[in-house]
């Protein structure tokens, strides 16, 4: 059994470690590239959203490398992600690929079904072993997400921000080569040290921009055209409203009671959007408000074209922009997104925030 899975930001590091810890062979999909997207777009339904297209590209590139089993998570609505597994299976079947797909759908009244699937994917029936590996994988993932956060913070402040990219690129290459929990954690810690030893320009006061929106396009850097890097080089500190390790904290660990952080977002969103709208629509509204209250300079919402929950959020965000006096920009990505136009919009937005900040200082100075 050679296991593969779709890319989602740092997730591959955690899942790879988890599977290796269980003694399974993992075929990592190659890093998302133009080719991935091209393959995906060619074989997917035309009007489906971007994540599915990239997923299909990931699968096919992994199958080319020898994978024969795909593991993915599922959901039960109302976002169309719940039907990804059905469509993807049909597409791969039509293309003549003989692969098995193991889908971790929420239990939906049949917990045994999910447990059996987990055992099948884990290739062992020992629950202790599975849980131990999941905990280890989770820890590695958490470290990886922390590393990304640190790199974002340092990129905005470093004397030479491109050094951060060099270190992170090296890390990304190395992390595919190391095997198992110990080596991965060692690599993560070393990279962190390397980043922290970079020279920092203490005079810089970076702008703070929050990124909210649809989970896949926030987390997968390829889908959002490496927005963190782009903004980082402009001297902006980026904070994302969702990461994979946070998603795990929200959905897997708290079990049936829900997580505190997520409930806070819902509470914040309540005056604007009182019920769920599927996906992370409500969380987008909630976290925008929380970011605004925490004195961020601006917010960027990213969504794949035709994403239903985020469109609802998008129509509510202008009211938040007015009520909290914080600029919010919406960026929509799909397979046709051009990099130059995207960059121009980012630059214009950052310029606007810079100007706002200067105006604010002037106002304060003239008052005193």
């Amino acid at each position, binding site marked *: 059994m050679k296991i593969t899975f779709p890319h989602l930001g740092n997730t591959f590091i955690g899942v790879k470690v988890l599977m290796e810890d269980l003694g399974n062979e993992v075929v990592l999909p190659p890093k998302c590239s133009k080719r991935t997207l091209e393959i995906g777009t060619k074989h997917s*339904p035309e*009007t*489906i*959203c971007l994540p599915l297209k990239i997923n299909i590209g990931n699968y096919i590139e992994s199958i080319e490398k020898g994978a024969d089993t795909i593991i993915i998570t*599922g959901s*039960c*609505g*109302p*976002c*169309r992600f*719940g*039907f990804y*597994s*059905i*469509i993807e*299976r*049909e597409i791969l079947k039509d293309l003549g690929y003989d692969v098995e797909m193991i889908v971790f*759908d929420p239990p*939906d009244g049949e917990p045994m079904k999910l447990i059996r699937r987990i055992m099948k994917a884990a290739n062992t029936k020992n629950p202790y072993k599975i849980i131990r590996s999941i905990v280890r994988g989770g820890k590695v993932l958490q470290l990886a997400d922390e590393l990304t956060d640190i790199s974002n913070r340092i990129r905005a402040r470093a004397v030479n921000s491109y050094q951060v990219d060099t270190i992170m690129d090296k890390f990304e290459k190395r992390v595919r080569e190391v095997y198992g929990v110990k080596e991965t954690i060692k690599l993560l810690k070393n990279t962190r040290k390397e980043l922290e030893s970079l020279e920092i320009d203490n005079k810089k006061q970076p702008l703070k921009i929050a990124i909210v929106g649809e989970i896949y396009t926030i987390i997968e850097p390829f889908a959002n055209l490496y927005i963190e890097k782009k903004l980082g080089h402009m001297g902006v500190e980026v904070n994302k409203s969702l990461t994979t390790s946070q998603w795990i904290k929200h959905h897997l660990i708290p079990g049936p009671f829900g997580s505190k952080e997520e409930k806070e977002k819902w509470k914040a969103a309540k005056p*604007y*959007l*009182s*019920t*769920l*709208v*599927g*996906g992370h*629509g409500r969380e987008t509204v909630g976290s925008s408000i929380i970011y605004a209250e925490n004195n961020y300079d601006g917010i960027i919402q990213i*969504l794949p*074209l*035709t*994403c*239903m*929950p985020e*469109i*609802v*959020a*998008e*129509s*509510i965000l*202008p*009211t938040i922009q007015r009520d909290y006096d914080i600029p919010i920009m919406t960026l*929509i990505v799909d397979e046709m997104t051009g990099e130059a136009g995207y960059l121009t919009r980012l630059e214009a937005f950052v310029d606007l925030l810079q100007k706002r900040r200067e105006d604010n200082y002037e106002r304060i100075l003239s008052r005193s």
Partner: protein
Amino acid sequence: MAKKVGIPQGLLFYDYYPLWKEFLNELGAEIVLSNKTNKSILDQGVSNCVDEACLPVKVFHGHVNELKDKVDYLFIPKFVSVYKKEFVCPKFLGLPEMVKNTIKDLPPIIDIEIDLRKSKYNVIKAVIKAGKYFNPNLFKISSAYKKALRYYEEYLKLLNQGIIPIEAIKMYNSTLKKNSSKQEKSLNIMVLGHSYNIYDEYTSMNLIKKLEQRKINVITPEMIDSNKARYYSSKLPKRMFWSFGRKIIGSAFTIIEEQKIDGIIFVSSFGCGIDSILIDIVQRKAKEKSIPFTLLTIDEHTGEAGVNTRIEAFTDMIKWREKNEDNIPTLG
């Protein structure tokens, strides 16, 4: 003076209007309906809605914009779920909020929440909340609802008999029932899609009438027995969690399995998230059973001539297929 309640003629209007109307009328409210969709409503909708929303949502915004100055209340219920463990489209879940945040100077909105995910008795709460706007008497509210429900069942029966909603709305409460004079029609074509796309005469460019003029018998998802549709949709490898999806998939599968159909036209609005999945599923099934299938995508720019040509080509293709050869591909 009776309070005026505005009902926009869009989205779920085609599914529930008789129920809403009878209920509100019974409680002494005066119903004000927006005009049928036309160019000016569409334009108002496009300029009053986020660009990325789908056509029916934009049209709905247009209807709201037209009504807002004429009424005391706007009736925009928030549909979360109409069946156990199922959802409607995510955009409906946030519809009142979308309207509130994009259109200014609105009258109060009656945005009762209808959420039957956990229990079907939740509807009682919503009914009472809506009724209280007009009459505090619980007994009166419940009898009004029961009465409205009776009319609504009558309406559903009419739809099942193959009468399209716009016609059925006119006749469900009159004793005079038109005997649907079924002429011998040559072809049976199913027009598939959300009710607000296929029945809106303006945005669908009169598709149903056009087909009927060509002596084609039109079948829509509303005409299929809902129990059958539920049975066939349950054959999917995963539970369909959208109510609309279940209706569309179920009715399409019913009619494909029973081989009562010569072709399927799927009307979808550009950017519809649910349709992007449904089209794929129905198309695969149609291909498997060699049923001709075509997709009409509508948006605010669709030109009528192009649609006409495609309908003509599709029906001609089916006719040739019947007459001469059976090797014409099913996916035109």
